[in-house]
């Protein structure tokens, strides 16, 4: 039954990866900004959730919406005050800007929270079925990640703001002519990216130890998910996340855990070569 266990492990991990990457993918796809702050936003969301739970006894489910909204506000301001000034510049300029801002946020967090790993311990027990054992907190995290990703998809498809974001992504000039305030939409998109990062951080704090040392790793995962799944869309992040989770889990079992990340990157390279748009991405966003 090992293979069943491995597949379930991969799917659960993949759902968490999708949640981690969806905001990053959205910002990259819509704004053409590689947001190096994304990893720090995730860790900030995780820390805020942890301290709300540890210091005030607030359940992560209760704090999650507030943490996500707070991150939305931070993301909105960062875009409005800084990134919008250079958003039309070459991608290297915005990357450098967000990299610099990330260094500031990273070190502020290290000073205030320290780099000590922290984790919300819910101890929800485990669930066994057909010889497969899964911790409930991971399943819970997966369900929450999928629900949030689904909610974002719904908002993008059905709401005015969502349609405006999609319109700006498709044709900035045409969207401007239609009366869409592009800078405002950019700031909202960046805010939504930060919101999803904050929510992912809150979920991660229930499943993984959170520390500032992990910010770079989160960015790395988000990159791979975006390339595998395709940029700028919720389904792309979902497919990329699930694919990466399964690849790491299966290759870790058959080739050893030492090689699981390498296999993930090799698959990413292969997809870049044969299908630069990603598995479900659209031409023009590769």
């Amino acid at each position, binding site marked *: 039954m*090992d293979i069943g*266990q*491995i597949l379930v*492990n991969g799917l659960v*991990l993949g759902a*968490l990866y999708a949640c981690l990457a969806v905001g990053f993918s959205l910002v990259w796809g819509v704004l053409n900004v590689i947001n190096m702050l994304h990893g720090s936003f995730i860790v900030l969301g995780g820390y805020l959730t942890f301290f709300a739970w540890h210091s005030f006894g607030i359940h992560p489910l209760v704090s999650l919406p507030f943490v996500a909204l707070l991150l939305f506000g931070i993301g909105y301001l960062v875009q409005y005050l800084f990134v919008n000034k250079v958003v039309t510049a070459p991608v290297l300029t915005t990357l450098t800007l967000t990299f610099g801002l990330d260094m500031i946020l*990273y*070190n502020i967090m*290290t*000073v205030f929270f*320290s*780099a*000590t*790993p*922290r*984790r919300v*311990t819910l101890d929800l027990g*485990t669930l066994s079925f057909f010889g497969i*054992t*899964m*911790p409930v907190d*991971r399943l819970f995290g997966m369900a929450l990640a999928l629900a949030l990703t689904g909610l974002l998809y719904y908002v993008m498809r059905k709401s005015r703001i969502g349609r405006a974001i999609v319109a700006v992504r498709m044709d900035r000039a045409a969207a401007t002519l239609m009366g869409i305030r592009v800078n405002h939409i950019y700031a909202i998109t960046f805010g939504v990216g930060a919101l999803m990062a904050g929510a992912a951080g809150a979920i991660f704090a229930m499943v*993984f*130890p959170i*520390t*500032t*040392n*992990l910010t770079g*790793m989160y960015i*790395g*995962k988000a990159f791979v998910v975006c390339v595998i799944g395709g940029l700028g869309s919720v389904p792309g992040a979902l497919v990329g996340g699930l694919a990466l989770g399964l690849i*790491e*889990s299966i290759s*870790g*079992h058959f080739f*050893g*855990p*030492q*090689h*699981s*990340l*390498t296999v993930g990157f090799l698959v990413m390279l292969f997809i870049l070569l044969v299908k630069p748009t990603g598995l479900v991405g659209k031409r023009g966003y590769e």
Partner: protein
Amino acid sequence: MSDYNSTKLSMGRSQVGRAGFLNGILPAIFLAVAVTAVPMAAAQETIRIGAPLALTGGLADEGMKQQLVYGMWAEKVNAAGGIEVNGTSYQVEIVEYDYQSDGPRAGQLAERLATRDRVHVIMAPFGSGHTVITGTVGERYRVPTIACVASSESVFSNNNPYLFGTLSPNANMTEVMARYLKEQYPDLNSVAILGRDDVFPKSMAEATATAAEQAGLEVVYRELYSVGTMDHSSSLTSIRRASPDWIYVTGYTQDLILARRQMADLGVTAPIITMVTGPAYEEFTEGLGSLAENVTSSSWWHHSTTYEGYGIWPTTADFYADFLKASGGSNPDYIHGSCAGSLAMLEEVLPRAGSLDGEAIRDALAATDIMTFYGSIRFGENGMNEARDLPIIQVQNGEIVVLAPDSIKSGDLELISR
């Protein structure tokens, strides 16, 4: 903590390291003026210990641990009248810079410490990689470098005569542990080893495999996991199938917390679970709660040991008491112990050197053979502290118990029920 820090600031230490304007031209001008304005005679009245520290960036936790004990030591030694060398009493001064967890920057700052600040000894930063960089600079300028947090033997394999390390070789930890566990639990026949693919954790995993085989154990699982692994399920599923008597995992605290948590989730257990060096850090037991119970580890030092020896802290208990005051109640780990022990060693080395010349200090360091609150310090041919019986520790009822060696033992091994 804040009171303590403000006291330290009054000791006249240098602290540079924030990026931006503060690192720009203006401070350089001030520094140049200050250096030329200070008469050399006045500059010689202190013993200057240089310390490139990772106060920001990924290694900030470790850097701040070093900073804390350096300050404690300087304050205590100065209050006691300083260190007497060749008939003159010198105050000590810690000259520290933040190298922002960036290796090349650690090298640049070590160079600055050796050439501009003219420090007499350099305390290397955390980790084997950054120690090599700093040690190379020390050798170039003939400034003895003390590595208090580098344990990989490869660091000391370059025959750098100015580099001395107070941690013992990794292999020493693993051989002692495999032998001890086999003695205490004769039914121990198999071990599963999962190590992080990184300098220290990897070398510990490899050394344990060798030590286990020498102790007659079968290694039923042996894999490394990549840096950045967020899920150990695949490895743990394989370990569960192998059903070993001993599970040995190496990594950094966040890896070990994740692995232990997932072991519990997946029902992976064994009579003995070792996580190196998890229990040596308070963060590990805090992060795991009851799951840390009965996890064993090796460590270079633990505050529950009972060493006695030279220096401003004659016993481990003396150091522990001072540390609790300085840290606001948190417990020290081996980083604190080794780095403070290194400085306590200097209290004996510098008078014996009879001079603050780098070569004289180097020769005195090479001939060191003393006991401190941290344990014995005697450097081998390669400059590394020679093998000694390192503590084997276990979490019992939320507290750390020393299982071995017998001279400092405070409890017996407890097995984990399957």
